[in-house]
């Protein structure tokens, strides 16, 4: 087995999603190489070299890869696929953007959002918003997988892999990066947070999210949201948890003013402990909550915060 993992990073630091993906790769067994494609990304390569279980880091350092545009990344990955049995990337928006095209260029399938490695060619993945689990056998010579990061632990940083430069630059010239509106936050990232407090339509407006933030400050938590809260403009899209938003599995998930639609549950029902605060005692969120509190959130949440 010879496995290539595509690292996720911002040219300065390695994203932890890469560590979960390496753990999935290690479960397949065999040689694991990590590709760091970026611009001025040597620091990331050094970080990647420390991931336990990685034997080689390939750095493609070129402006063409600065923003990891799919059209430029794909020919690079296809080139490096020679001799590989598996190519893995985290199922983040970046991995989801790049990998299907890699699979298509290799004329193989992509197996999306893998949650379990059964063997080198059998994988488990959720379908229908997590209401069913499919066990899929790959018949392809190269397996292209995206990995659901919450299903795999982060690999440790105790290794020392060899770092090797890869010179080829591919600039397809079809797309260019214009800019980004990144929400700056001191809080942990949703997908890596140990505690998450999320608000739904019941929050009423964006300002009211401040009562969740006060709790988050005390618990070191990330703040999430339902689709309804994002659609209503209360908060930004990067906070959406669910089937089509972020998939999270913290130690503690607190759902506030969220009814518990299947699309929301799909994104959080693997959390270890779930708390729901909702004034409707019939809300479906209570069917997955370990601790349910039927109450008006505007009274319950500030009181909860002052009790912490």
């Amino acid at each position, binding site marked *: 087995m010879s496995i290539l993992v595509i690292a996720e990073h911002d040219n300065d630091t390695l994203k932890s999603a890469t560590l979960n993906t390496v753990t999935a790769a290690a479960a397949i067994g065999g040689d694991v190489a990590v590709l760091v494609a970026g611009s001025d990304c040597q620091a990331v390569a050094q970080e990647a070299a420390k991931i336990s279980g990685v034997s080689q880091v390939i750095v493609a350092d070129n402006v063409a890869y600065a923003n990891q545009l799919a059209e430029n990344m794909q020919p690079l990955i296809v080139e490096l696929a020679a001799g590989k049995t598996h190519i893995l990337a985290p199922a983040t928006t970046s991995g989801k953007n790049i990998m299907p095209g890699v699979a298509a260029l290799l004329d193989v399938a992509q197996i999306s*959002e893998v949650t379990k490695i059964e063997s080198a060619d059998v994988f488990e993945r*959720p379908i229908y918003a997590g*209401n069913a689990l499919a066990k899929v*056998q790959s018949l392809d010579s190269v397996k292209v997988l995206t990995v659901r990061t919450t299903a795999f632990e982060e690999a440790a940083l105790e290794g020392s892999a060899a770092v090797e430069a890869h010179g080829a630059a591919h600039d397809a010239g079809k797309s260019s990066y214009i800019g980004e509106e990144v*929400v700056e936050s001191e809080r942990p990232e949703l997908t890596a947070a140990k505690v998450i407090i999320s608000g739904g339509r019941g929050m009423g407006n964006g300002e009211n999210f401040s009562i969740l933030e006060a709790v988050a400050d005390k618990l070191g938590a990330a703040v999430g949201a339902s689709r309804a809260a994002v659609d209503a403009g209360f908060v930004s899209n*990067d906070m959406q948890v669910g089937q089509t938003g972020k998939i999270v599995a913290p130690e503690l998930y607190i759902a506030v003013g969220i009814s518990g639609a299947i699309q929301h549950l799909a994104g959080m029902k693997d959390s270890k402990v779930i708390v729901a605060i909702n004034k409707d005692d019939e809300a479906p969120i*209570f069917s997955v909550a370990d601790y349910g*509190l039927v109450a008006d959130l505007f009274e319950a949440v500030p009181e909860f915060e002052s009790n912490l």
Partner: protein
Amino acid sequence: MKVLVTVKRVIDYNVKVRVKSDNSGVDLNNVKMAMNPFCEIAVEEAIRLKEAGIATEVVAVSVGEKSCQEQLRTALALGADRAIHVEAEQELESLNVAKLLAKVVEAEQPGIVILGKQAIDTDNNQTGQMLSALTGMAQGTFASNIEIKDDKALVTREVDGGLQTIELAMPIIATTDLRLNEPRYASLPNIMKAKRKPLETKTVEELGVTIKEHTKLLSVTPPEERQAGIKVADVAELVDKLKNEAKVIG
């Protein structure tokens, strides 16, 4: 400029799916089917491009059994000009769908192809990206805004960190995210009119694609059910449980 928009027939998003007892798949008998919600957004965007005078024609495509003509009729009722049904008896893998769509693209030469970002049955999120790689057209995935100016398109994308804007050389492939637009409903007169709009059927053979099997579905099982816990009486009890029973807060 022509717009090609893809439409997949899937289980209605409100239906709670049930896994078949023989673990061969999900029970679709007598289940309400509908247009994939992300495809509704794709159709809406296509129609808006036509209403804005940017697109001249909207063509809807679906790959599947005869029943998917129902969703194509819906697209026509919403404002698509004509439809193409690519007949396929069994559910095809995304790569095979993308290969069929690539042939339609080759024949139709659209300026933009709009797909949903994800089908809510397989949750694959890959067909659009595969189509982009196969056709060599640039991709703007998970779009929350699409702006077309002459031979360029500005696409704002919903990414993990927030919003990213990229510029693409036309023609392009776009996949829709939830915030791109709010789809309209079809009016009764338009539903009637849609019955007379052209709907053409093509076979896989006619398109010259060899369907290859890349994966085998071994089993489909229900996920572990999460047991409902308890209701606490008040905030004090909640804090106590979290501290002393679940031990998730200090």
